[in-house]
Structure formats: structure tokens, C-alpha cells
């Protein structure tokens, strides 16, 4: 399905509006149609509704923007007022809401990173199950993970098996930790390099108080005076 990532069929598929096989067949038959024409055909033939199309495109675009919010480094190029190709479907998205939701996700992501900083740790079932476990109900994601919980499997390995990204695995494992279902343990033979620990400490330090030299301040002063 990777051949048409970013096009209408993949958006509808991702949003659960088309089954995989149907999406594949539609994409093959409509490879010369642009998204707008394809949407018209799908709506007219009753495969999806107009609302399905708008909702799928909106969610797809928002997910891309939300993912950008979680970047800690990288480059991007901003082109104001640039429109996509004519055949692509555009939808109005309210900027304030996107920023609010994006910011909420950043905070959630930071919290998950604080609670579960190291994906090379492993999981084991708790030795002292809490009474609340009697009524626990697991999500499909949690069930997927359960069968791989053992001290020799790192969380990163479990995520890889299930094609889960860092955010998804952290969120799911955090839920299981909070429920008292599993505990974190250090896998056998795991060594934390001293340099890595030092780098982490330095990174936290930089976030709060940037180490800036007097020379930099003087250069800033000279530049602003010359403006």
C-alpha cells in the first residue's frame, strides 16, 4: 500500500472507510484519476459518503501536523499560501484548534517520555497483583503486547514486532504500568553507557538555562546597535 501514501485511497483506508483489498483494487483501477475525480466516483457509487471523504482528509492532514509538533529537531520549509495540485482535495481546518490539540499532544508525549524514558527496558508481570486487576479490561493494543511480556524482550523489540511507533508503545505500556499489570525491569546484559547518561543530563540542563558565553552577548549587542 506504500505506493499511494498521501492520496485519497490511503486516507480512506487509514480512517477505516475502505477495507484493504477494496482500497488496493480501487487504487489500481483509478491510477489515472486525481483525488477529486476519484472522490466523486466513490461517492456516486456508494462506496463512501462526502462526510467520509472530508473527515478522512481532515484527519490525515491533522495527523501530519500533530506529528510535526513532536519534532525535537529537524528542518522544514514553510510556504505561505501555497496550494496543492488542483486535483487534490483541500479542507478548511481551524488553526486555533489544531494548535491546542497539537500542544496537548506535545505535553502528553513529554509526560510519556518522563514516565517511560528508556525503551530498552523490559517488562514483567507484577509479582503482587493489585485487587483492581480482577476487573481489568485490555485494549487490543494491550493484548498484542501481553504475549511478548518477558524479561528478555525490550519494549523497543515489542514495538518493532507490532509496528508500533514510540508514541504508541509508550502510551500503551504506560497504561499497563498504571493499571499495575506489569513492572519495568532491566533486561539481562543491558548496560547504560556513561556518555549517554551524561548527554541526557546536559540536555536537560540546556533546556532550562542555556550556557551562553559573554562573547555571544557582546556580539548580539554590537549587532543590535548597528540595526
Amino acid at each position, binding site marked *: 500500500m506504500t505506493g499511494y501514501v498521501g492520496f485519497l485511497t490511503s486516507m480512506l483506508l487509514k480512517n477505516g472507510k475502505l477495507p484493504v483489498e477494496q482500497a488496493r483494487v480501487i487504487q489500481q483501477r483509478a491510477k489515472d484519476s486525481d483525488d477529486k475525480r476519484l472522490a466523486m466516483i466513490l461517492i456516486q457509487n456508494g462506496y463512501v459518503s462526502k462526510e467520509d471523504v472530508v473527515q478522512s482528509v481532515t484527519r490525515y492532514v491533522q495527523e501530519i501536523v500533530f506529528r510535526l509538533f513532536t519534532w525535537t529537531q529537524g528542518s522544514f520549509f514553510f510556504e505561505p499560501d501555497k496550494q496543492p495540485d488542483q486535483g487534490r482535495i483541500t479542507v478548511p481546518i481551524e*488553526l486555533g484548534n489544531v494548535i491546542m490539540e497539537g500542544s496537548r499532544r506535545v505535553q502528553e508525549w513529554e509526560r510519556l517520555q518522563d514516565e517511560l524514558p528508556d525503551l530498552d527496558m523490559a517488562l514483567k508481570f507484577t509479582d503482587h497483583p493489585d485487587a483492581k486487576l480482577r476487573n481489568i479490561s485490555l485494549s487490543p493494543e494491550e493484548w498484542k503486547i501481553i504475549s511478548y511480556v518477558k524479561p528478555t524482550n525490550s519494549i523497543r523489540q515489542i514495538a518493532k514486532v507490532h509496528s508500533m511507533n514510540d508514541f504508541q508503545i509508550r502510551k500503551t505500556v504506560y497504561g499497563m504500568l498504571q493499571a499495575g499489570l506489569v513492572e519495568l525491569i532491566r533486561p539481562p546484559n543491558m548496560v547504560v553507557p556513561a556518555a549517554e547518561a551524561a548527554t541526557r543530563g546536559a540536555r536537560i540542563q540546556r533546556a532550562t538555562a542555556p550556557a551562553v558565553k559573554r562573547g555571544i552577548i557582546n556580539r548580539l549587542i554590537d*549587532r543590535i546597535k548597528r*540595526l
Partner: protein
Amino acid sequence: MQTVKMVVTGPFNSGKTQFIRAISEIDVVSTERKISSDPEKVKDETTVAMDFGRITVDDDLILYLFGTPGQKRFDFMWEILSEGMLGFVVLIDSARPETFREARRILEVFRGYAPTPYVVAANKQDAPDAWLPEDLRIALKIPDDVKVLPCVATGKESVKSILLELLYSILEEMDAEGIEEEA
């Protein structure tokens, strides 16, 4: 390439966007939106995420200026924008005393994020009923060691003087902490 940043904060309609526009070498990347709520209808648009300006010092150093959103409902952006700042400017509309309490709150919140130097800019000094900087200091209970400076954010020279005073404050704090230049 090293980048450093300063934050310009203050209550709604205190002049943060104008401040950054006055000095940025690029068109300010602004996220202004039409205002819908009546109590805030003193102007047509407001910043919802941030304003972003840039001053290139040389090939190795760039100063970024971030303006915070003024409306309270967007204050979740403040902490994100304040991370790693060299210092910050608190802009106050000197002619609207009803905003002074909010300015005090913002100042305290930013002091809580990071113990970096800051200056208070008494903006709109060209308004007929503007409070003088020293009167503002008393009203806002600003300590004597913090600079309260007159400002007209539409004027480049005025904005330059505010940023320079902030940089001098940063140097003074380095002196006080005995931070040495690397050999």
C-alpha cells in the same frame, strides 16, 4: 551555527507583535486570527500561537525573537516558547491600568519557568494617558534591580534600546555569577 532566543511577553494588546515587527529582519511569521469574543474587541486580530522574528548576527549566530500569545486561553504556549530563552521582555500597555494585574501574573509565571534576566517595557509611552515607568514599577511591585524602561513598540530605536538593556542585564548577571569567558 548557534541560535539564541529571547521571548517577548505581556498581556493581550500590549504591543508584542509590533515590537517584534519593528526590529525583525524578516517578515514576522505571525499567527494572528480575527477576534470573536466581545470583551477582547479592542483590536481586530490577536496572536494565537506565537510571533516569530529573526536577527542575523553573523554567519555563526542568529537571534530569534518569540512573541507569546496574549490571550489567557492560549497561555499553554508560554512554557513551550520560554524553553532555553536567554531572557525575556515583559511589555505592558502603560495606558491601560486594567491590564497591570495580568502583566504581574505573566511576569511571575515566566520567572517560574527559568531564572533568566528580564526587563519590563512600559509601552505606548506616546499615548496621552500613559503611566510613567517609575509609576508602573510601584503599581506592579517590580524590584529595584529590574529595569522598567519607556517604550514605543512601533519605533525601531525604542525597541533596540529595550533589547540592548536586556542584553546588558544578562551581562550584569554573568558578572554577578562570576561566569568566565572560555579561553
